[in-house]
């Protein structure tokens, strides 16, 4: 009762930025799948204009993959996660290197290798409790 009487009605903010705390390798995976499909379509086409567009779009999607990987690496993963995933840094390094390779390549094997590396990142995210900790209600079923 007294507590309620004393409670201020006005709130003031000691303002700081709030990270949203939602992270999921699925974001990187979807962009990497776009890259994969674009490489398929590129190789199936003989239309020079289409192939040029495909390369431009592949470049953009690959940049998004890098962005999402970096966000996971810098913001989600913490030093204590190295215990569960000792090769964490090497994993992100290889995955980002593979994005660079895919940018310069139209070989479907390179795009496939990127998907596999992102699956490894996904496993690391799950091994550190990412699914329970960062998604609002898990992944859509």
């Amino acid at each position, binding site marked *: 009762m007294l507590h309620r009487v*004393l*409670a*201020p*009605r*006005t*709130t*003031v*903010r*000691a*303002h*700081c*930025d*709030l*990270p949203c705390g939602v992270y999921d390798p699925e974001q990187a995976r979807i962009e990497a799948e776009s890259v994969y499909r674009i490489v398929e379509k590129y190789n199936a086409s003989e239309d020079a204009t289409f192939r040029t567009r495909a390369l431009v779009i592949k470049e953009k999607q690959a940049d998004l993959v890098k962005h999402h990987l970096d966000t996971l690496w810098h913001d989600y993963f913490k030093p204590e996660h190295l215990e569960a995933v000792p090769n964490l840094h090497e994993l992100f390094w290889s995955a980002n290197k593979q994005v660079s390779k895919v940018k310069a390549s139209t070989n479907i094997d390179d795009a496939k290798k990127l998907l596999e590396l992102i699956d490894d990142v996904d496993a690391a995210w799950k091994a550190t409790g990412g699914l329970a900790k960062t998604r609002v209600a898990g992944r859509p079923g």
Partner: protein
Amino acid sequence: MTETGPRRVRGALRPGAGGPLGLRGLRGRLAGPWRVAVAEASMTPSISEGDWLLVDPTVDRWPRRGTVVVFREPGSGELAIKRVAGRPGDWVPFSGAWLRLADDEAWLLSDADDAALAEAGHGRAVDSGSYGPVGVDALVGRAWFRYWPLSRVGRLPKASAPPFARGPGPAPTSD
């Protein structure tokens, strides 16, 4: 950065000035707030989230450096709490250069540094370092006493806050 830069409007035409004819005259100031609850973490360790503070809303000019003030944040207009780090006429470091505060401006900073905030899972502090000087028409009051939680009741610690010492470099300009 928010869109509100330094305000350079001075004199009788300044809107909302503290004088009796201003929008926030004596009656407006007496309306409070006299008590506030603190949200967010940028004033730790001196003031924590959830603290309840007493505010003196009758002040109409920037108090001494080191005083904790409640004000309307430039851009958002939301009530915010920070510490006075620079007063009208002071030079303050901003964005790699020096800035001179106008007659009605203060420089308001957070107590917590970014490293401590990051460790506690928060983002960067948002203060004059991001939105620049704050005009006195945004001043709402001076926070002076913590009355909750009971374990930490007492006057708010005043930080010793000497004026910024202007370092070597190119001569600063006032405008």
